[in-house]
């Protein structure tokens, strides 16, 4: 299960991410480092699926105008 999730993220990173960037016309869109997808991979690996996913979701949601 863990492996499946992580390989889904791998596919996203390899293909979807550059397709999205091309459609929207941005080269660099991440303010956080590592990128959210990379972070999600690490988190899922380290903390398991549920906690990892929750932490990743919080992180994606924190990338917006109302937080610093």
């Amino acid at each position, binding site marked *: 299960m863990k492996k499946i999730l992580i390989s889904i993220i*791998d596919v996203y*990173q*390899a*293909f979807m991410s*550059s*397709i*999205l*960037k*091309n*459609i*929207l*016309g*941005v*080269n*660099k*869109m*991440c*303010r*956080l*480092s590592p990128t*959210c997808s990379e972070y999600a991979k690490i988190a899922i690996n380290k903390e398991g699926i549920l906690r990892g996913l929750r932490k990743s979701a919080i992180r*994606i949601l924190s*990338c*917006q*105008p109302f*937080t*610093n």
Partner: protein
Amino acid sequence: MGDFFNLILVHPIINILVAIYSMLSFAHIPYALGFAIIGLTIIIRFVMYPLTTSQLKASAKMQKVTPHLSKIKEKYKGDAKKIQEETMRLYKEHGINPAAGCLPVLIQMPIIWALYSVLQRMVTLKPDVVVAEVNKIAYFDFYKLQNTWDPSFFGLPLGEMPSKLMSTAGPLILLVPILTGVFQFILSKMMIPAKTGVAVIEKDIEKKTQIDKKDAGDFASAFQTQSLFIFPVMIGFFAFSFPIGLSLYWNTFTIFGIIQQYKITGLGGLGEWIKKK
């Protein structure tokens, strides 16, 4: 979920499309459906204009600070908290708007998708069901359709795919996907910043990270580095197998993007090529 999406995005967009169409056909403008698609795309692009602009500006600034970022990363290796702090300070110094984030990106995606699904649905309607289907969705009587529409645009059938027209229209129809790919390529090329000292350093960094990623498979890494070329080809292929009405949408979308990109960040990577000539 689908119903909700229809309610808040798809149906309103269909209404705008039909309203524009009715206005144009009331004024006896020929090829009203095609021009309505162009008009609709331009309106949506104007609505998203501030979002796209802030995102383009932030992206250009991010590009500038990348070398500093990697310096920070090296300096405080292992201390994630410190890296985060220093990064935030760097952003503040360079006036990177925290309002950029990825939220503008996330907002635009469903809109682009909705526009796609609206047009896919509208241009492929059979002539005898157009009136009934459209009027079911129209909110107001005054722009409801009286007759079915003419689904052609300067002789091109908006509901047909170039792949199917090959046998009747001949290879000339290939111009549709080719042009779509070319416009996409121009935009993608403009997105890459002109080569400066900064860009060169960044390329080195990218090379380093690519070596780390080698195990991700050769095709995947090729896709990332060559997306400038692969993506336009992919879009061209889509244009080949999707109804022409969608290519009309996508080309309007891209040309608007080219103009916006030019106004905000200039020619970018395209500049080198134009100067050479």
